[in-house]
């Protein structure tokens, strides 16, 4: 994390206070807000004054946002989160880190939602390149990105969506031996793998690292989302490493995006400090029947 000096911070706080405006919400409440373009200006000035340390712009933006939130001022980009996450929780999100395995169907949507929510650091691994069969559901699969690394497309997208996210993409298939290192700095692991072959290893290593794992799987119109705490069994431990129902039923976009949204909501609940809602449970849905049920594993 970029270290900006206390002297600069005192000046920055002064500037933020001077530039803060009041947003009046529909219900009459008022919220101090730092407009988007002032965040950009302050970050630019910050980056200029620290050129010798070569802080990337995104880190400067993140720093301005964190200082504003600590002052009780909401950066405008997070204004519509104000009721879902308190300013204290929003600050926790900006200071949090997540490890995401897989940048395909689940991973693309999960990453998008974490980035927009302002999760501070995301490390993500996927050695895949986009192929035409990804186009039915994978957010970052486009005509242009076909043939390119999913990790590269994700990085390009994050620069557009929220440069304040310290994003570390890795275009590799994560080996079990490398997982502990991969988890460093993260409070949470997201299992967005496709297929069942590698999931048990991921649960094992996350357990070693003491990290909760938010996991999901989809087949046809149905899917599940679960949170596995260290030392506990997850769905993958029951499913085995063989073929899954998705091999015959496929992975259509609505089920994938539904599972990914639930994963993101659960991850944000953990990262903002509220704790998991699905620990030891398995939320299952069937979009053909429009049924949702939370089961105890």
């Amino acid at each position: 994390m970029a270290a900006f000096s206390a002297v600069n911070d005192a000046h920055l706080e002064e500037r933020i206070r001077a530039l803060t405006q009041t947003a009046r919400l529909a219900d009459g409440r008022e919220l101090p807000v730092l407009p988007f373009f002032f965040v950009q200006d302050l970050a630019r000035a910050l980056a200029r004054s620290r050129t010798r340390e070569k802080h990337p712009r995104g880190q400067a933006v993140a720093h301005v946002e964190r200082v504003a939130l600590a002052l009780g001022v909401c950066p405008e980009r997070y204004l519509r989160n104000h009721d879902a996450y308190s300013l204290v929780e929003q600050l926790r999100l900006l200071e949090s880190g997540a490890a995401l395995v897989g940048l395909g169907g689940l991973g693309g949507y999960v990453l998008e939602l974490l980035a927009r929510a302002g999760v501070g650091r995301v490390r993500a691994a996927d050695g895949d390149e986009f192929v035409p069969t990804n186009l039915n559901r994978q957010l970052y699969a486009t005509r242009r990105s076909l043939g390119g690394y999913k990790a590269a497309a994700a990085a390009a997208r994050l620069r557009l969506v929220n440069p304040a996210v310290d994003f570390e993409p890795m275009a590799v298939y994560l080996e079990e031996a490398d997982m502990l290192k991969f988890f460093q700095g993260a409070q949470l692991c997201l299992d967005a793998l496709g297929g069942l072959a590698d999931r048990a290893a991921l649960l094992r290593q996350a357990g070693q690292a003491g990290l909760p794992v938010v996991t999901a799987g989809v087949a046809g119109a149905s899917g599940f989302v679960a949170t596995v705490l260290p030392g506990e069994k997850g769905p993958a431990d029951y499913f085995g490493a063989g073929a899954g129902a998705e091999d015959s039923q496929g992975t259509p976009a609505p089920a994938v995006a539904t599972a990914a949204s639930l994963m993101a909501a659960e991850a944000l609940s953990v990262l903002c400090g509220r704790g998991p809602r699905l620990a030891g449970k398995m939320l299952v849905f069937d979009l053909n029947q429009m049924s949702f049920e939370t089961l105890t594993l």
Partner: protein
Amino acid sequence: MHITLKCFATLSRFSPPDAEAFPAALNETVADIVARLGIPEDELKLVFVNGVHAPLATPLADGDRVGLFPAVGGG
């Protein structure tokens, strides 16, 4: 007595038309029902009775809700 059956993903092809009120004999177990539906053992990975993970040998009572899962891992 009757139970409610919910067969997920690929197991939905074994779901009977009367899944909402499926006739079961007193003390019939989940395994009995699974056999009656013709679900291959290796396709069934998780069983839930009344929303809680349960073994195949669980005896059923009137009104029980049974959920049956294959392996699901798409992403």
